[in-house]
């Protein structure tokens, strides 16, 4: 029994941290441990969560995407502009998603064709998309025109949980199943571990990698729609900062930056850690400056614990 607990701790330090943070919150703040607060936490992280699902899958193949942040802006802008020009709900939403997928396509194409470093290429497309966003919006705020569209961000399922949260959780679970139980998913892990061995095992490495970039673009596009629907409008730099945040939550959950390790359920844990910390720090009225320090410390603790425990895991 003790051994299983020990093994669990070694394998999932992030869960322990999460449980610790939640108990700490329940102990310190009377309003923390309420269902309403939890719904709120989930709601506030759902946009980041949807992006992180795509980012996690990319990380599993040993790649990553720094352009997700501005894709969030681009997809929102595309949707809103389509609506302003009289498109209906479905067309405008499809347009927004397509915008995300197109950038994913561009990323994938460049990286696969040239074999260039993913970090730099996506950094480049990121700035490119930002410039497109600025040109399209002229730095103005643009408002969504169709009220039904706003349900995506604000609506609740029978008044309980927001649709955006449901979308995020469903995607995370669904993608996890695909990752673990399908040939496609299994191949992604192999690519992450060793792309050469994957090719020699008959896996179409480039095609799959390309597919994952498309998926990541799609996720970022969807996140952009949710964010736009949540606030009812969008601006050029709507998602700024989410690229690093999505990496942080994936890593907090235990997904490796070197590929081959991780999963989207773990990312939910990572997201919750970040959401709970932010929520707790505001509930405790901690100054913004101190919040930054606290976030940095928690993040470093988790990753250090993971790094040190990795050794233990190997020996056991």
């Amino acid at each position, binding site marked *: 029994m003790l051994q299983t607990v020990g093994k669990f701790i070694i394998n999932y330090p992030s869960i322990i941290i999460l449980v610790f943070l939640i108990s700490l919150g329940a102990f310190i703040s009377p309003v923390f441990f309420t269902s309403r607060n939890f719904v709120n936490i989930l709601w506030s992280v759902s946009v980041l969560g949807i992006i992180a699902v795509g980012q996690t899958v990319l990380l599993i193949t040993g790649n990553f995407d720094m352009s997700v942040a501005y894709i969030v802006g681009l997809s929102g802008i595309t949707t809103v502009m389509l609506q302003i020009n009289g498109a209906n709900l479905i067309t405008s939403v499809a347009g927004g998603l397509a915008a995300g997928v197109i950038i994913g396509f561009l990323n994938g194409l460049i990286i696969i064709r040239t074999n260039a470093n993913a970090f730099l290429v996506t950094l480049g497309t990121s700035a490119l998309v930002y410039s497109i966003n*600025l040109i399209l919006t002229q730095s103005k705020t643009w408002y969504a025109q169709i009220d039904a569209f706003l349900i995506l961000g604000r609506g609740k399922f029978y008044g309980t949980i927001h649709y955006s949260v449901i979308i995020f959780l469903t995607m995370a679970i669904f993608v996890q199943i695909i990752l673990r139980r399908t040939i496609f998913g299994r191949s992604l892990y192999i690519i992450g571990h060793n792309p050469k061995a994957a090719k020699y095992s008959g896996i179409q490495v480039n095609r799959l990698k390309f597919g994952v970039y498309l998926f990541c673009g799609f996720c970022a596009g969807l996140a952009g729609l949710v964010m736009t629907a949540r606030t009812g409008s969008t601006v050029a730099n709507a998602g700024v900062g989410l690229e690093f945040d999505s990496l942080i939550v994936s890593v907090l959950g235990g997904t490796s930056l070197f590929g081959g390790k991780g999963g989207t359920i773990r990312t939910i844990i990572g997201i919750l850690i970040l959401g709970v910390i*932010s929520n707790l720090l*505001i509930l405790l009225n901690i100054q913004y400056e101190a919040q930054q320090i606290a976030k940095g410390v928690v993040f470093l603790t988790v990753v250090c614990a993971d790094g040190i425990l990795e050794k233990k895991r190997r020996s056991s």
Partner: protein
Amino acid sequence: MKKNLLFLLFCLAFMALVMPVSAEEGTFDICVVHNSADHPSITAIVQGMNDEAAIFGANVTYFDPAADPQKQASMIEDCIARQADVIVVNCVDPTAAVAPIKKAFEAGIPVLTQNADVAPEGKEFTYAFVGSQSIDQGYAVGKMMVEKFGDKEAKVVIIGGNPGQTDYVNRVAGAEMAWAEANAPYEIISDQPAGWSKDKALTLMTDLLTRFPTGIDMVYAVDDPMAIGVIEAIKAAGYEGEIAVYGTNGNVDACEAIKNGDMAGTALQMSYLVGVYAVRAAYDINQGRLISEEILAPTAPITIDNIDEWSDMCW
């Protein structure tokens, strides 16, 4: 070898393609260094400047340092190198802007500050400040609050921009000034930044409503997009009508919200006019005329009572 030559050719062709964007000939050149071009108020200013510049036949060139004071300093130097007739600076940081503005002064190029002024020690190197004082805007909002709550005790939440930014700090200071004048015993129970982002303001307000399930009387979000985010959070949490939300700017959706009672008030910043005034001032300087040291666009307090008069000024 061939590949590299091709690359060289490609680079040259690419550069050449970019060239046609160069400015046309006009009577005089205005060089504008923004604060950060991705904010709506800058867009309004640019519009005002462009419209007015067409009348005076001025060439206006814009630079965007993306809120980086060092880049702003470099860009002011670029303007000096371009030998612009007038340089207009929207200071990212009041203190950091002193040195480059001094350089322009020494190079004999007149400088106007716009929207955000330079620190007092740099004033002597500038001709004038054109804009609306952010402290005035905060003061106007503070007055609106006093009108509504009088000298009753009230709890206020501040939703800020980026930590340390002048507009944020000054607007809050302005509001406090108004309270102090009226001896209003308001208490700021939370002051947290939301990075000028509607979405972050929404999340922040949601958490704050959890923390203070009762007792928030007023919210001052230091610009309108964040105020709208706050209103969304209030609606989602079911506190509609219980909390008075104030903003600053006078964005279209804020005016809309004031009209239908969701928002208590905003301080209308007439950014378009700031742009117009700046070009006029630049023209006057270029013509060798004397101008006033402070050219202020009016700040109008907008509430539900006077929204109809102002609604076509919202931007």
